[in-house]
Each structure stands twice: as structure tokens, then as C-alpha cells.
């Protein structure tokens, strides 16, 4: 479904991702994880075409992701839903207008059908009463659910979520995880989630892709990752800074002279 080969991504001269090779299979929930600043969001942005790879290739449904205005890429993007970290709903439109947007842009469906699909999508994400509200009037969790409804508007077989739990309370966060699991069960879609929330990872992931300092350190089932005894992956699941288990003595340049 998604094939990434030898991907290198840079911001200016700064290398963010080094030689990443992985693939995501149909109907799985893949979690891309790692601590902050390790290249998770960069990987996601590269896959969805927002960041041009420095080298390497990304194929979604067998099509190379290139120029965003390339007809092939546009066709692929119609089959992909993206849930951004802050929702990225269009602030000048109501929730229902936001959800209707991909349908209006990419289909010739009559308005009555579009309205019905919007109602259905909002019901799927438990937001039936927010249709006429503007994004600015929604809470963080509601905004994410509305954005999820928009991402699902065209029934994409592939859904990307960038830190869906970020900034949410544990209850709302757990609710969103349940929603993703329900959607996978109902629609059979592949879900790629970028997160560092341990509870979410343990709850929803089939496989994980662990990034450490821009490199892919582990790519496989969560159960195997959990069995690891040492190293950054193990540290991460033990809620420690990856790499923190090594001896830090001598790291500090602040050696005080103490007396008494």
C-alpha cells in the first residue's frame, strides 16, 4: 500500500531522515513513534507529499508521489485522508462545509447526497450537533474529530494521523483511539499514526516503526518491540529517554569543587 525506499529528507542542510526503507500493508494500524524531534512528522510530511524527499522514493498504491499538481499524485491523494496535529480545518468554513469540501472538489455528487454524506461522517465521529459551528467554536478534541470526519469524507483506504492525542486529555485521547479502531473495523482502512503516546501505541498499533536520530531503528510488530531488553526501543517503552541507560559520567562540563 505504501512503499518507502531509501528515503532521505532534509531541511536545508540539516538531515532529518536517513535512508528510511519500510512499507505499510493493507488494513493494518501502523504507528510511527519515537521521542520528539526524531523525524516522525517529517516522515509523514514526506509520505503525503508536503516535503520533497532529498533522495529515495515513496510509492502509494504503486504511484510515485511527486509534484502535487501531477494528475497521478492528485488521484492518489483523493484516496488518502490526513488528520493534522491541530486539525487544520479551514477557519472561514463551518464544520459541515469543511467536511463537504473534498466531496465538492473531487466528485460530481448532487448537493443533497453530499449533505447526507457529511451528516453520516459527523455521526461516525460523534459530532452530529457541530455541523454549523466554526472551527474556532470547537474544543481541541471536537476539532480533531471534525478534521477526522473531513479526512474520511471520500472514504479513503489510507488514513494518516499526525499526533491525534496531542493536547488532549486522557479521556478524549482514549475516545479518539477507540474511534480509529472502530473505523478500521468498519471500513477496513489502513491507518498510519504518528505519536509518542504510550497508551495509544499499546492500544491501537499492529506494527510500529521506531525512529531514532533520523534512522529507522525498529520496524515490526509491537509485541516484538516490547520484548527488547535494551537499547532506545526498550528505553522508550520503559518511559526513559532513549539512550539514557548508558553511563553518563563525564558528560557534564560543570564539575564543581565541593567542600564540607
Amino acid at each position, binding site marked *: 500500500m505504501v512503499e518507502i525506499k531509501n528515503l532521505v529528507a532534509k531541511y536545508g542542510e540539516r538531515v532529518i531522515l536517513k535512508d528510511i526503507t519500510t512499507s505499510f500493508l493493507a488494513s493494518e494500524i501502523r504507528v510511527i513513534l519515537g521521542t520528539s524531534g526524531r523525524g516522525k512528522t517529517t516522515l509523514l510530511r514526506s509520505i503525503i507529499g508536503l516535503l520533497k524527499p532529498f533522495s529515495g522514493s515513496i510509492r502509494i498504491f504503486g504511484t510515485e508521489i511527486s509534484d502535487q499538481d501531477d494528475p497521478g499524485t492528485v488521484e492518489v491523494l483523493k484516496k488518502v485522508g490526513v488528520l*493534522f496535529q491541530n486539525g*487544520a480545518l479551514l477557519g472561514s468554513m463551518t464544520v459541515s462545509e469543511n467536511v463537504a469540501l*473534498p466531496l465538492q472538489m473531487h466528485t460530481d455528487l448532487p448537493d443533497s447526497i453530499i449533505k447526507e454524506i457529511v451528516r453520516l461522517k459527523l455521526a461516525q465521529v460523534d459530532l452530529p450537533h457541530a455541523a454549523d459551528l466554526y472551527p474556532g467554536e470547537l474544543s481541541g478534541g471536537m476539532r480533531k474529530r471534525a478534521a477526522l470526519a473531513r479526512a474520511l469524507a471520500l472514504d479513503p483506504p489510507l488514513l494518516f494521523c499526525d499526533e491525534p492525542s496531542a493536547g488532549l486529555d486522557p479521556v478524549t485521547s482514549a475516545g479518539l483511539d477507540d474511534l480509529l479502531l472502530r473505523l478500521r473495523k468498519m471500513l477496513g482502512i489502513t491507518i498510519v499514526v504518528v505519536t509518542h503516546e504510550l497508551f495509544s501505541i499499546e492500544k491501537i498499533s499492529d506494527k510500529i516503526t521506531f525512529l531514532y536520530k533520523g534512522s529507522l531503528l525498529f520496524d515490526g510488530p509491537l509485541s516484538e518491540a516490547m520484548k527488547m531488553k535494551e537499547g532506545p526501543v526498550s528505553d522508550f517503552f520503559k518511559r526513559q529517554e532513549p539512550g539514557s541507560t548508558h553511563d*553518563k559520567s*563525564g*558528560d557534564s*562540563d560543570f564539575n564543581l569543587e*565541593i*567542600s564540607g
Partner: protein
Amino acid sequence: MKTRITRDPAEKQSILVPVFLNLDWVSRCDLLSGEKSKTLILDFSKTEKIDSAGMSFIRLLHSAYKKAGGKLILRDLSPDLLKNLQAWSSPAGQHIEKKKEENFLVKTGDTVLLFKDNAVSAISVLTEMLYWGTLGLLKKRDFKKGVLGEQMYQLGFKAFGIVGLLSLLIGIVLALQTAIQLRTFGAGVFLAPLLGITMVREMGPLLTAIILAGRTGSATTAEIATMVVGEELDALQTMGINPIQFTVVPKFWAISITMPILSIFGTAAGILGGYFVAVLYLDLGSSLFWNELGKSLAIKDVFAGFVKSLVFSWLIIWIGSFYGFRVRGGAEAVGKETTASVVTGIFIIIIADAIFSFIL
């Protein structure tokens, strides 16, 4: 206030640190500016707490003594406080990099490169706007139904009042200043051709453009910049929607249609202002004013005014969009780019007007 220092025979300074080493004590302490080549003992025997200012103070003092060849001794520091101090210190090699002092040549080079990047980016926005607004429409049409009418209403219709009022007032002022001079020479009848040509060729399109640069240019920048900051444009891209077509093209067409109309309206309002001055101040007859005006205006004057207003409208949307797309940061950056957009917009319009004065 001087810090109380005691000296022992071995030339060691000793300072008793208070119970709470906090920012108040640090701000009153003058140790950082004193001599650091000897040994300083900080006595923590009574100290129970150290805040961030206190920790920074110890750290700075430590480096200053180390550099000057002196020695800093922390006496009777409790294990907890020591642990905090050491935990707070950064691991080797993780210092925040200081920006190196750059010489004149490097700064000049950076400025030239920045200018080049901005020029390339501005030309890229212009070509994309022109392509997706014309030929690109045959390829795809990524905008909502009815958006052109909505934008024409927002950018054009809502500006009618302000354009009309300001043009009328400028027309009155311009006519009055001219009329005073003309009356001295008994040449009041020339007011109509003077005012007519000025308003049709120059002031009508220019004044309308300046008003719209402030109104529409700033709104365009603010709207696009807010969308950039809120990742809304990224979201559009991932939905396979072209952001230029979605955000800029409807405004491009709306302003292309409404600006010439607004310009004609502004010109008419200005001439009307002049007419009032001619009738009320110079005692000219209505028919004489309109006859003289009609005789003095040629088709090429009207054409010049039309071309100017059309080009000005494209400049407004181009500059507004360019500043919107280049925003980086948050709300403050949106404000800065909006201000820059208006200032640059007005500047470029006046430059373009000066160029037109030679061509048309």
C-alpha cells in the same frame, strides 16, 4: 548593596549564601563583576533552596573563575541541592550555539542572497497566479461554487462607499486648489479639462488602487498567512486541492473585474466633486462644465485609466499573496507580513504609475 565578604589569611574570600538563594539576592550581588583570579568560597551551610536565577549565578560564577584561573568552592552544599545543580547543567557538546559575528562582506552576501530568494519566490507566486488563473483552469478548477461572486462582493462591492467618498473629497480638494489659481487669471473654464484628464488618467485609478492596496491587499495577506500558520494550505494540498487556485485565483478574477468598475466609479465621484467646485466657487454653468470636459477627454485617456486599474489590481493581489505565502512563525509574523504587504503594495503601485506615465 555590596555582598558581605570575609577574608581569611590564605587570601580566600568567603561568602555566606542566604537560606533562599533567589533572584533578589542574585540581582543585588556584585560578585560577577569582581576580581576572579583568587579563591572564592560560597558557604551554603544555611541554604535550603536555590531558584533558577541562583543556579544560573553559580554556573556563571563557576565559568568566570575557571576562565580567570581562580577557584570556586561550594562549602556545605546539601546533597539535594548539589544534585539539582548537576542535573541542571547541560551535557558536554550540547551548548546553544552562539551566532558568530559576521563581517561586512558576509552580511552583504546574505542580504543579496535573501533578496534573490525573495525575488524568485515573488516571481513564482506571480507565474503560478497567472497560470492557474488562466491556462490552468483548463486543467483543473479547485474552487468552490459561487466563490467568484462572494469575492467580488467582498473585494469590490464593499469598497464602493470608501472609494466613492474619498474620490469625491480628493476631487473637491484638487478642483478647489486649481480653481483658486485659475480664477486669478480668469481661466476658470479650464477647470473641467484639467480635472477631467487628471481624474481619468491618473487620480481615479491611482486612488482606487491605493485604497484597495490597504483594504484588499492586507486582507489577502492576512487570510493566506493565517492559513499557512494553521496548516490549512497543507491540508488543502493533501486533499489534492491546489492552494493557489483555491485561495488566490478567485480573488484574482474578482479584483480584475471589480477594480476597473471601482476605478470608473472613483473617477466619476472625483469629477463630481470638481463639478461642485466649478458651479459653486467659479460660478460656471453646468452645461459649460460638461461640454468642456467632454471635449477634452479622448478615448486614449479612458484606455490609459482602464489599463492602469487592471494592472494595479493584479499588483495588489500578487503582492498580497506573496507576503501571505512567505509567512513563517505565528500571529506576530502574520501582522508583520500584513504591514509589509500594504507598504510594498502602495510603493509598487506608485512606481508602476510612474512607469505608465511614460508609456501611456
